[in-house]
């Protein structure tokens, strides 16, 4: 029986001390880290044969669309359901995302993503839900440009990989750019650009991005986050100049 070793950084609750546990799981062809974790969940016994509690972790759609299973896999920010165990030689080390408050084991609390999106007013201020006959014409190339950013699943991997997201900074992560930019480009959202740009001009906004470009490397949706940041830095600068001269 071919097996794979999984080493999990565990922590029973946010105040407790972390510890490591090693699990040995039967390997099947094309197996993902998420599948391996499901096997540990079903049979929570360590490689030494000791019973333990099941490893807490989030996992939902299993096809890379919900972003629930974001974690650190061998030190890299990745989705467990899109990472295949055959990629690795030695034991696979699993750790929770470090940029979000820990809940337990590999589970973290990502509600701050919602807070960051709210703070940046990441929405189009609709008149209401009633139909009003406004179906904006959007040229194909504009649509394609918006579409790549709207693929964002808010998994938070970009925040995890970013050196600027830390305890001393208010920067939330590059997902903010991916959410703001398509709204600014959208015919229905252009009018409300000002509010979003003002939010990005404040502390924790575009100026806090130091162009480390890690976000783009770990984004599971392949979103051009560096280009988004550059574009928004430019827009914010223009917006600030305009406001300075014309109020």
């Amino acid at each position, binding site marked *: 029986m071919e097996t794979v070793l999984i080493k999990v950084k565990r922590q029973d609750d946010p105040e407790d001390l972390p510890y490591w546990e090693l699990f040995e799981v039967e390997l099947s062809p*094309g197996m993902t880290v998420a599948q391996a974790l499901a096997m540990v969940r079903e049979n929570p016994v360590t490689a030494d044969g000791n019973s333990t509690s*099941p490893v807490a972790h989030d996992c939902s759609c*299993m096809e890379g669309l*919900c972003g629930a299973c974001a974690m650190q896999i061998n030190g890299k920010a990745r989705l467990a*359901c899109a990472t295949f165990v*055959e990629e690795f030689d030695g034991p696979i080390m699993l750790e929770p995302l470090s940029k979000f408050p820990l809940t337990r084991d590999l589970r973290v609390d990502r*509600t701050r993503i919602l807070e960051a999106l709210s703070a940046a*007013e990441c929405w189009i201020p609709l008149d209401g839900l009633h139909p009003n006959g406004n179906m904006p014409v959007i040229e194909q190339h504009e649509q394609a440009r918006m579409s790549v950013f*709207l*693929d964002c699943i808010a998994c938070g991997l970009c925040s995890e990989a970013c050196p600027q997201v830390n305890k001393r900074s208010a920067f939330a992560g590059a997902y903010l750019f991916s959410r703001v930019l398509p709204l600014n480009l959208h015919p229905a959202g252009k009018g409300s650009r000002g509010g979003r740009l003002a939010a990005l001009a404040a502390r924790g906004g575009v100026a806090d991005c130091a162009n480390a470009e890690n976000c783009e490397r770990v984004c599971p949706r392949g979103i051009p986050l560096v280009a988004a940041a550059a574009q928004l830095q430019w827009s914010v600068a223009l917006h600030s100049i305009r406001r300075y001269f014309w109020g």
Partner: protein
Amino acid sequence: MEKSSPKIIVIGSGVAGMAAALSAAERGAFVTMISRAEPFRSSSSRLRDGIAAALDMAGECDSAALHAADTIKCGDFLAHEKRVKAMCEAAPGIVELLARMGVAFERTPEGMVRLTRPGGASRRRVASAGRGSGVHVLSALSSQVLRAQSMERAFLMPGWEFLSLVQGEGGACCGVVAQNLRNMEIKAIAADAVIICTGGYPAIFARHAAAAESDGAAAAACYAQGALFANPEFVQLTPFAIGAAGKWRALPDAVLAEGGRAFVDKDGRPWHVLEELFPQSQGLVPRDVAVRAIWRSMKEAAMAEGSPAKAFIDVTHLDPDFAEDQLPSFFDACEGLPGLDPLHAPVEVGPAVFATMGGLWTDEDHSTNIPGLFAAGSAACQYHGAGIQAGNELLSSIYGGMKAGSAATAFSRGTGAAGAAPSAMLNAAKSREEDVVAHIAAQEGRENAHAVARELGELLFATAGIEKDNAELKKSLAKIGELADRFSKAPLLDRSEWANAELSFMRRMRQRLSLAKLVVAASIARDESRGSHFKPAFQNRDDAKWLVITKATWAEDSPTLDHSERIELATKPDERAY
């Protein structure tokens, strides 16, 4: 709480839940949205087909009436015509609404919305967005929900799980009991009305193409408290799912509409079954029709060869640029899977449970039989009849959600509302759920609940999936009883009082078993073949007897089934030929 600002609880933060929350908030309600995870993580994210609406932008003289006729035929005439028509009339406005919220639908070179033809439809009608319409629509709706929260009209409670209803005089719903999935606190919350938007139950089946939490637990909990459950026997399969990475991924209908071809491998040669059997619709038929055709052909090919046959989706003959341009959601489904290169080799596919048509019984306004309890989206049974047309999942969830939101607000302002639950009632509801926890914690034995869940799924897929047979179903019912017995001997694997996901799983497992019984019992009762419900022993549709909705009432041993609600159609149902 003053009557002018009713308090409404929405359970679930998928597409339907957010639509319900927005519509209730717009009508002046104060909405609390309870969900297991943040709004982006719902099962709606995996909906790769877009949204259907008779936008009539392809020069085909499409209309809401045609959209409704196609929808009803796809559902094998088991949906109330008036309701389907109203939905189809609202559809173009809903696509517009999503576009105004920021969804960038695919465009034609002229800048108009590009439409594709879903299986079984007569016109090009589905607008899709980028690599995943579900993800894009969730993103747009969640942005509006955050806006409603900033305006203090809505309040998000992610990380809480719905457990049961608080019921007052005569069973009326006046709140919910929920559990915090972090600190495990159980709380009873009073409300003027509750809207269940927790999705369907595909995940109780093995080989499902949904999220692991799409197990219908919340709807099943309401059913156990007296809500009627409608049409549980109707389960939607898709023949075009990729089985990889421990999951089945449903491919969008667009792949066939834009020139991809489905075939069964017979003696090493491609056998284009669907095109051969359904030349008039170029092989673009509803999912249940396609599933059976491919399934039978695979059996036939396997018989001839003596080894299992395989089915494929082939886009290798298409111009690569054209294909990547027209089928982003198809390529997205294949992306990252080792050994898969759709441009150079056909992609192997198999049948998987994609969605469920059954759900809580609701009236035209999405009210269940319990006063104050509403349901929308896949948690409700309303628009799909015996089969779902691609593009109608998103449409019905948004339309139904908005309808439920406004109906719940109107109800709360009316005289029927039970009003705020007294604290004694809330405490009683809470302690009932604490007893459930104690009961689960006391389970002892050597069984494993996860293994039982898996066996249950395999049993359901084998007996209540593609083809159903009464003798097998009856055996299956007995086996479910055995599995329930084994489950009661499965201990709780996690004893922690903090973020205990096992407890939640075990509680949901109880609901799974009750739903499984319901699906099988309702399948046994319906002796006909209609849409996704297919019994080889009863090959034909029987409109004289079975043009009715199954309405199930919960009972301790087996559900009571009522078949008295006839479907209202303006004209006599046609033959369902493609």
